[in-house]
């Protein structure tokens, strides 16, 4: 084969980045080759947004939802919890943009405040999952021996249960509260994160730079945190972003089944369960708007997650 040289140059660079956890090193090189100003954060962001327009859209959607959650009181004048039986099941109109539910609560403000609940659970569960997943994965991969063996069996066990079933059992056991929902959603996330971290730790442990650090007398703890953890960052970011969307979905499902976030927190999923079958006939707005909010939020995180995966993990690139 004699591909044109520019192509072969591209494939060599790609080849380097495929050689495992050191992907971030050649990532910069690849960017620079493609003409990005890697020295400036803004230059890089601008370049990435241009190269991955869908990722840019995803980022915009996620940002929008975060802003909505933060500035909820400024966006809507209505109290999401205030009931008013006289306007029960009002149709969408100027006063109530998305109508009202059977208790006469303003649906628009409930959807807006619902972003708080949804994002709190999504980010909380992801953060919790990442922190403990990383600790478990590092310990398992780095310490080895019986720690590894036990962890692997526990992970097998957790992975033997469908995500939603495990989350349901957890949520039921812990009882209904915002914090418990976060924990219940975080636990099914642990296995995949721990597995990825363990795998890269195992391969990194044998890398020359780790050997070098050890030879220089660096403590094992320090090696794990200073050298191994940063190198597992790329797959971690990919997993975490992909996990955001699924966390929103699991929260919605749990709340829909009545096992999620309890009152008074407005939750998109619970809004749908309250309105489920009967309102399909009588008050479709109660079904449409909360569902749209969930879909839109998850769509945004999925777009962002896809782009991040393309950027950080060339092996799984969906488009070229």
């Amino acid at each position, binding site marked *: *084969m*004699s*591909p*044109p*040289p*520019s*192509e*072969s*140059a591209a494939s060599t660079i790609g080849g380097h980045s495929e050689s495992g956890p050191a992907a971030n090193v050649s990532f910069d090189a690849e960017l620079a080759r493609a003409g990005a100003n890697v020295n400036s954060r803004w230059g890089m962001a601008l370049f990435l947004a241009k190269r991955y327009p869908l990722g840019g859209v995803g980022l915009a959607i996620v940002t929008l939802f975060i802003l909505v959650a933060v500035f909820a009181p400024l966006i809507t004048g209505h109290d999401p919890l205030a009931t008013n039986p006289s306007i029960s099941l009002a149709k969408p109109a100027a006063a109530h943009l998305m109508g009202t539910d059977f208790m006469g609560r303003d649906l628009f403000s409930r959807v807006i405040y619902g972003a708080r609940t949804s994002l709190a659970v999504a980010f909380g569960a992801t953060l919790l999952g990442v922190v403990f997943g990383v600790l478990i994965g590092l310990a398992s991969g780095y310490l080895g021996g019986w720690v590894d063996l036990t962890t692997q069996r526990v992970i097998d066990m957790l992975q033997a249960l469908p995500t939603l079933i495990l989350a349901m059992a957890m949520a039921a056991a812990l009882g209904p509260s915002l914090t418990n929902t976060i924990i219940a959603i975080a636990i099914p996330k642990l296995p995949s994160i721990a597995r990825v971290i363990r795998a890269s730790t195992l391969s990194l442990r044998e890398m020359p730079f780790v050997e070098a650090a050890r030879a220089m007398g660096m403590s094992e703890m320090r090696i794990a945190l200073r050298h191994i953890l940063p190198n597992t960052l790329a797959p971690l970011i990919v997993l975490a972003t992909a996990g955001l969307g699924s966390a929103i979905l699991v929260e919605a499902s749990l709340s829909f089944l009545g096992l999620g976030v309890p009152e008074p927190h407005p939750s998109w999923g619970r809004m749908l369960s309250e309105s489920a079958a009967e309102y399909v006939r009588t008050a479709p707005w109660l079904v449409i708007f909360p569902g749209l909010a969930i879909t839109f939020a998850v769509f945004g995180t999925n777009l962002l997650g896809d782009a991040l995966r393309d950027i950080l993990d060339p092996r799984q690139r969906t488009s070229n």
Partner: protein
Amino acid sequence: MEKVAEKVSADTPATAKTVLEVEGLKTYFFVRQGVVKAVDDISFSLKAGEKLAIVGESGCGKSMTALSILRLVPDPPGRIVAGSIKLDGKDLLKLSDAEMRKIRGNQISMIFQEPMTSLNPVWSIGNQISEAVMLHQNVSRHEAFDKAVEMLKLVKIPEPSRRAREYPHQLSGGMRQRAMTAMALACNPHVLLADEPTTALDVTIQAQILDLILELQERLGTAVVLITHDLGVVAETAKRVIVMYGGKIVEEAAVEDLFENPLHPYTQGLLAAVPHLAALSTQAGEAASRNRLKEIPGIVPALVNLPKGCVFAPRCPHASDVCRNEYPPYEMKQPGHGVACWHAGKLAGGAHA
């Protein structure tokens, strides 16, 4: 462009029929950085049963020439933009996809460089060979498999009927290349394109595979285009050589002629860089004894937006202003010996100086 067909071929009688005639072939790659002229205006012809070698460093366009003949250039980004490829007088570039598929593996077949990756890992060897047979001959699955076993026997694989049921990973590299050869020759093609068939193999196996290919091509009367970067291989096998550089043919001659009297500075450089050939050629031999192996300074140019002038000029010890400004015409310096170099005449006698 010169009349290729008129060239006197060194090894085949002038009466032999021309099977393959490539004229003015241009295969370009359209990439973000620009246009890569991987194959740029190539013309040559091949007679029945002839052994032709195309040599050049990697990236010179020799493999793309072969892939172009089979119309297997990855598209996008590559495309054949001009020229004709005539097989028995029929222009392949004018055929429909379905007609072209009847040619591939049947009248023209190809052996690839990497026997490890070029065989499908989840299909048995026998099935891969018999597929080629079934695609082009009206035979049953059973008959095709028998033919596959027969081919494996022909390429001297021991226990062919057992091996036919095995998968590529169960075979050694040499065996895989034998199987590849069996697959390529299963339908008795007129033309065999062998793209670096021995590069990925152990040195000891290389000679065996080359001998096998030559033996079979003689027995079956197949014309062979051997693509290689290894002048040693050329010396052992081919009768006529085309030297490519930067997507163009820079020199073409009979093997002995080329080795004794290389006209293009690039060919001279290539010859000087080959250890055991250096001893063959007295001129280069002196050079070799003086300063051991010569290497050609510089690297193969990136074929994106080439400058005007001779592509080799930046690496050429004899480059002058005219070289840097205008691409030299391809001219017949002696019967059957063509070259594209402004200084070919001057250098002919004094390449060693």
